[in-house]
């Protein structure tokens, strides 16, 4: 399976600040995604991170709030901007690895608490 590393794994953030989460994959992947898992809820797709171009956002998520970069095939960042307590969630990076059919792998997640 692809190894996906995320950092930070956990952070406590002040209201109104922004935090960038980094995701590194150990091998080349075709697709990278960012999901959010709010407390007690399932995973919701935020966006697809596209290499060298703007991310594709799902309904309810916008670039100004969740800017995403993907400068190469193995690295992506998600920024949570101007945070409020409602942004307290686990943010997960995931990736589809070439040659594995349609299997998608997940990072350990970044657990953000906004106070």
């Amino acid at each position, binding site marked *: 399976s692809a190894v996906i590393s995320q950092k930070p794994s956990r952070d406590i953030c002040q209201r109104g600040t922004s935090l960038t989460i980094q995701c590194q994959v150990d091998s080349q992947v075709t*697709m990278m995604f960012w999901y959010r898992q709010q407390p007690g809820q399932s*995973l*919701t*797709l935020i966006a697809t991170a596209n290499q060298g171009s703007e991310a594709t956002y799902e309904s309810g998520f916008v670039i100004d709030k969740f800017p995403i970069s993907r400068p190469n095939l193995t690295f992506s960042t998600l920024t949570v901007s101007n945070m409020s307590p409602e942004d307290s969630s686990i943010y997960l990076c995931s990736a589809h690895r070439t040659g594995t059919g349609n299997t998608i792998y*997940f990072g350990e997640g970044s657990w953000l608490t906004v106070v």
Partner: protein
Amino acid sequence: AQRVTQPEKLLSVFKGAPVELKCNYSYSGSPELFWYVQYSRQRLQLLLRHISRESIKGFTADLNKGETSFHLKKPFAQEEDSAMYYCALSEGNAGNMLTFGGGTRLMVKP
């Protein structure tokens, strides 16, 4: 748009009892279905996918297109099976994103 429904938020069984975690989906095309598991304090990991028709840790799941279901089953539950289980759907093209169900917490009591 695709949708995945897991009707039970919590399923509690005794060790050795059969387990069935229900998953229903709605999608007009040919989906690919997955079960992911998340053990306490661990990352989400793939348990099985329907196209592989495999049995992992004693779990199986059969895609029933007529009933649009992909229920996860195990004949004899073990305490170490206690975890969150998520059913997920992909549109079938390689690398497509997943749509997740709400998850079912399985508790296996001794």
